[in-house]
């Protein structure tokens, strides 16, 4: 690992915001890492895959001509590691203004099959893994009376559908958890942003069954997320059209929804 003490010290006239991205090695996480580094953030990039992480950090640091991204290997399913790693990262990068949780897995069981192992893994990573990080960070931000949390949920959490009950549940759980944190933390000056992407052209998309309308690139998603962060929004859909699509889907009566193959 490169030595994070080489990151640029923040001064009043050259302030540096510091962030952690959990699940940074590809997709939305990697795109957001590029975007935030370009906007001046010092970043701790957390993911399982060491070589991808190192490549990403090298790319960012050479593009910005400055050490702005630092790799940390971690599997979010190892919950017990989170508090110590969080403490280490905050000390290494000299503070914390932002936590982004992007890590997620998707194991679609197929329309008529059931797969508890896959469901369990999705809950472990997408939901409990998120809680393992969000809860100590929430406590830290609450005490500091400042900070921003971004959680990547999904349109898939807006309704339980026939295709992937476990994934729907993990993302609905995460959205609810983020909403609860928002209600706790807004009064302490902390912003919590829930991001609900539709289809994004990442590795996970390959697992999606059927068509993938309105699919956007991870870079477009990162732009949307950054804009929402600056405006300190609460919930966004990316692409934005999903807000209206999901509004309709959420209001489809169960009588009909039960009979749909969607």
């Amino acid at each position, binding site marked *: 690992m490169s030595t994070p003490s080489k990151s640029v*010290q923040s001064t009043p006239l*050259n302030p540096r915001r510091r962030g952690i991205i959990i699940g940074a090695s590809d997709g939305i996480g990697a795109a957001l890492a590029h975007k935030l580094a370009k906007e001046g953030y010092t970043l701790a990039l957390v993911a399982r895959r060491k070589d991808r992480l190192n490549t990403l950090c090298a790319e960012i640091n050479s593009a910005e001509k400055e050490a702005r991204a630092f790799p940390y290997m971690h599997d979010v399913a190892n919950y017990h590691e989170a508090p110590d790693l969080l403490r280490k990262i905050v000390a290494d990068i000299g503070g914390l203004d932002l936590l982004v949780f992007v890590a997620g897995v998707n194991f679609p069981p197929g329309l008529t099959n059931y797969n508890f192992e896959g469901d369990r893994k999705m809950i472990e990573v997408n939901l409990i893994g998120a809680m393992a990080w969000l809860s100590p960070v929430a406590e830290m931000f609450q005490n500091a009376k400042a900070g921003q949390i971004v959680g990547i949920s999904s349109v898939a959490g807006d309704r339980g559908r026939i295709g992937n009950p476990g994934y729907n549940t993990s993302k609905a759980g995460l959205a609810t958890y983020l909403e609860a944190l928002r209600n706790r933390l807004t009064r302490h000056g902390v912003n919590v942003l829930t991001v609900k992407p539709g289809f994004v052209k990442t590795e996970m998309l390959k697992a999606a069954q059927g068509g993938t309308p309105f699919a956007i690139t991870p870079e477009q998603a990162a732009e949307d997320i950054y804009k929402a962060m600056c405006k300190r929004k609460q919930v966004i859909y990316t692409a934005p059209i999903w807000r209206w699509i999901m509004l309709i889907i959420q209001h489809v009566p169960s009588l009909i929804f039960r009979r749909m193959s969607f």
Partner: protein
Amino acid sequence: MQKNFTQLENFGHSMSAPSYLIKPTTIDEINEAFALAKKSELTVTARGAGRSYNDAALVGGGIVLDMRGMSAITEWDSATGLLTAQPGTTLEQVWQKVLPDGWWPPVVSGTMTTTLGGCLAANIHGKNNFKMGPIGEHVVEFTAILPTGAEITCSPKKNGDLFYAMISGLGMLGVFTSITMQMKRVESGLLEVHAWPAHDLHEHLSLLLDNAPDYNYIVGWLDSTHGGKSLGRGQIHAANYLHGNEDPNPQETLKVSNQILPPHIFGVFPKSILYLFMIPFVNNLGWPLVNTAKYVASLPRHTFRQSHAAFHFLLDYVPNWELSYGRSGLIQYQSFLPKETAEDAWREMLTMSLKRGIPSYLGVTKRHRPDNFLLTHAVDGFSLALDFKVTDRNRAKLGAMLQEFDKIVLQAGGRFYFAKNSETTAETARQFYGEETIAKFKKLKKRCDPKGLLESDLYRRIFE
């Protein structure tokens, strides 16, 4: 031992950093904090009152020791003027203890809320630096605990290398646990203060230079919002202790109650909210007017008597004045220049700031002399402290200008002071301290703190 995760700020509200805050009350608890730091791979910084304008008492993500939990005056001998106190003791506690017995702290800062530990770590100076040197010269002995767990006693004779390095050492070698200082005898609670106008920079510096030998204290206010022929104009205040026979009632003036700054101005207006009324003026339009009014009022030469506290603790006169600088706070840029090069360098800097539309709102000048401490900031010359308001719009411009200021100061053989400057780079620090001094300091650091447990954001910025 309670540990809280807290966002801490500096004096100017221009920086903040989250840290685990621990308030030790005993030496054992400092040791426990070191052990905790080692165990959790964190670094530690001792913090006094948090009155540095920079990152000296901050360590983002690390452990901050709030030393105000150790703030007892343990010994006071009114016959010899020797005072022994814990490091969290404030200058306010000290002067209130010693003045009724006819003593005064030999060196004080512009605010009395600073702690002795903080004062020693920065090796502060006062308006009498040209005569009395920095506060370190009046320390008879101190004890400290090193991150290795060793407790040491230092005086100029005993562990002299550490004595001259820990004082001025920015808290990076050890944590002070007890400080013994020699107070200065005073016969009256009043000072006789003389005020003269200075019409330009040349006259300003000449007045400081020529008058310093005749006075105990000298300080200048510099109107940094006006250029041209009157660049550097301002007012000089010089003060002398009153002798007993000059004060008709020294018993009375030495009383603490006759020193204390009044909580109201004009007898009725509460000073606690005064800063709110300053806010509309703290900008490029309003402040030159305020300065002009102040300058015009300062034109007649006059002499008056003032209490020690009122003369010294100007920063305490308007509580929370620093909040009037707005959301992004203020920074202070102080440079120390040899008397031969000061005028040209400051002329260039002040002209540059006016030309670029980022004037400083407050300039303060002082007269200095060199000292023997390792990380000394003093020179045989003058200092100029400039306050700048930080805004989102001026940040980048001001940052670039201060880097140019640094070059001018380095070229003129100047130095910087780390209770103040927040933008100095490691390269600039290396140049003015010199390789040899830094090597010496790092060697001591290795000896006292081999694991590098003591680390502030300031240390990360200028030494790593």
